[in-house]
């Protein structure tokens, strides 16, 4: 058996918590804090890595949906860029996390331009603002669930686990 990713993550956490941290002097607080945070990051990565591609796909699908919603009301001089970014996203390699991330960034820039309305700050239709806020709530909930294990969210008990969150998007 080759050492798989889950096994190596578990090994690293054990080494940090049972060997490295006890060996660090008590007064080296920054080193100890960082070692504990590394263990925390590894634990989160262990939960996330198998779903990373699916997570990026869901995020891109949702942002594409928002872009399509904004397109009809976008000023003409911004709509072309938004349409081009949408076309790029539709053509991107959906098996590649990197390609999806790049498509997400390209659409994000075009959406930002529409929100700010160019140099004239063209007003956004109220329906478009509502769609944007709906999207933002989904986006925030998705990211909060993705990072629920950091335990920083005051409302973490209201969030689903990763599997449930991704299943909700199907």
């Amino acid at each position: 058996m080759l050492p798989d990713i889950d096994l190596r993550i578990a090994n690293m956490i054990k080494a940090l918590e049972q060997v490295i941290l006890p060996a660090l002097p008590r007064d080296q607080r920054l080193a100890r804090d960082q070692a504990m945070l590394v263990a925390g990051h590894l634990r989160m990565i262990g939960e996330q890595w198998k779903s990373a591609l699916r997570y990026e796909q869901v995020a891109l699908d949702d942002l594409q949906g928002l872009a399509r919603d904004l397109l009809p009301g976008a000023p003409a001089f911004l709509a072309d860029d938004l349409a081009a970014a949408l076309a790029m996203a539709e053509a991107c390699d959906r098996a590649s996390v990197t390609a999806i991330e790049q498509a997400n960034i390209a659409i994000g820039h075009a959406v930002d331009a529409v929100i700010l309305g160019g140099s004239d700050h063209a007003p956004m239709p109220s329906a478009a603002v509502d769609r944007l806020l709906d999207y933002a709530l989904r986006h925030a909930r998705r990211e909060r669930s993705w990072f629920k294990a950091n335990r920083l969210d005051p409302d973490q008990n209201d969030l689903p686990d990763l599997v449930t969150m991704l299943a909700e998007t199907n």
Partner: protein
Amino acid sequence: MPMAPASRGDVDVWDRSEMEPRIRHILERTVRLRDTGPYRPKSDAEVMAMLSTFFAAKGLEEFSISDVERMSGGASKEQFAFTLNHREDQQGERLVLRMDPLEAIAQTCRGREGEIQSIMGNHMPVAPVRWFDADGDLLGQPAVILGFVRGVTQPSEGGSAGVSGMGGRLGSLIDRLAPQYIDALAVTHRFDWSRAHLRFFDAPRAQSNQAAIWQVNWWSQVWWDCLVEPVPVVALAERWLRENAPVCDRPMLVHGDLRMGNFMFEEPSGKFTAVLDWELAHIGDFHEDIAWTMQKLFGAWGDDGIFLVSGLLPRDDFITQYEAASGNRIDPVRLHYYEVLNAYKCAVMDLGQAMRAATASNNHQEVVLTWLGSAGAVFLNYIVQLIRKG
């Protein structure tokens, strides 16, 4: 939500040049130096060499630096405790060097921090300011050197502090800490900055929306300078903040980051020994401080299930006690505006500046920055809730 083009007030809400000059200097310096990284955490020997150069330039004679010790805590500055002896002080003093890494979660000015903290030491307990090097001319990087203050930010027993003091519980000391906390806010806001001859601060005009727009321009420039990945609701929040910028009747000193984790106290008395982290201080609208401390992330839930502002007081009690102590009346409309601004600021720090610093490897603790960045969506959620409420 009003989305009509803004027109109110004597400041053009879309004029991005409307910014406090020293803040502009700091933000421009950040961008200019960004590509000189990556930043390497300083070793004890490097710190001793930097301090030796600094104290020699300051004219100290027969000085020695000993017991250099790296400190933890905070998400922004690289900090070392050390002991300084010199001819005029043979007994020596324990000091703290608090210096800028190349980039941190908040890019701020050590000159402003040193100046205001030095003055406020006459009004409340703070760490005494011994020296500061606003642009790092002598130390090589901007820094402030403070007297070492003893105390804790969370009770030693049962405090359960989270990263940067968030999510902790103050337990049985609440009754003793809460009045001092209210007093610190009130004293800050009552401080007559107009007579203080501040070198590193400028004040926005009274009876104008300039105070709000200066803040929006500060944080939106950070966002656009740092942008790693666009977040639509951050752009929407910027637009909302411009189009809804309120008038500030009377600009006051704003601490900018007064919350659980940023005051130190001694045990078992609970007496404050220092109000910490003045790096975000500015002259502006006091509602900004009130909205900041009321954020959910900086509070805690009491045993009875009631949310406690900064882990200390239920929201209504906090407002009542603050108004009595300060003489200020909290305007719900302005409070709401600054709740949106603060959620925006936090999102910008967590998802913008922290991620840029981590991506560029320009900090001494990137694992902390990415950990805090993973909480950024909490603020996106707040922004939506708050804008919808408005």
